[in-house]
């Protein structure tokens, strides 16, 4: 396993809910990252964020990690959930809240 893959693995395992995004929670640097943060805020869940703009290695590595070429990316309990379109669809159907509340318990 490459170094970057190990680092990502660790982030995903250490945090039940982690969002890889552009910018920070307070200052998202892209519309999709901003939307992803808003969805998690609305879901009343604690979550960590990783700003890929601060780390070129992770910015590239995360795309290979999940075979997913875009950012943001949400992981819950080590599992890749999707990007902001999927988060929005799952939020609107209630699936995301269900997934997150199960993980909280």
């Amino acid at each position: 396993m490459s170094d970057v893959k190990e680092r990502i693995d660790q982030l995903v395992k250490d945090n039940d809910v982690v969002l890889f995004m552009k910018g920070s929670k307070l200052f998202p640097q892209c519309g999709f990252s901003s939307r992803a943060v808003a969805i998690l805020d609305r879901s009343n869940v604690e979550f960590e964020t990783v700003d890929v703009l601060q780390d070129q290695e992770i910015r590239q590595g995360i795309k290979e990690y999940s075979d997913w070429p875009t950012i943001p990316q949400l992981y819950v309990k080590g599992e890749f959930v999707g990007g902001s379109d999927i988060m929005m669809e799952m939020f609107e159907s209630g699936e995301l809240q269900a997934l997150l509340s199960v993980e909280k318990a």
Partner: protein
Amino acid sequence: MSDKPNGPVASEMIRRLTEALEPTRMHLDDQSDHHIGHAGHDGRGESHFALTIESAAFEGRNRIERQRLVYRALGELLDEQVHALSIRALAPGEA
């Protein structure tokens, strides 16, 4: 197919998606004008798109697999041309 944006990037996206996924319905909306002046808009336009695509290829596949099929069909266009793409991928009969 409800509309066809005229730009070369949009045309190429539609060509690749049509070839790979044989969509029964497709709508590609070029929203680049909404993003003039912020990061990712290089001034040429054709950078921000919203895609709705219906294809039998999505049947029995989850959301992640569906979007991966779209991403694969678009290939390097996504890295090099398209800064932002919002995707709704439906199987026939889904709302």
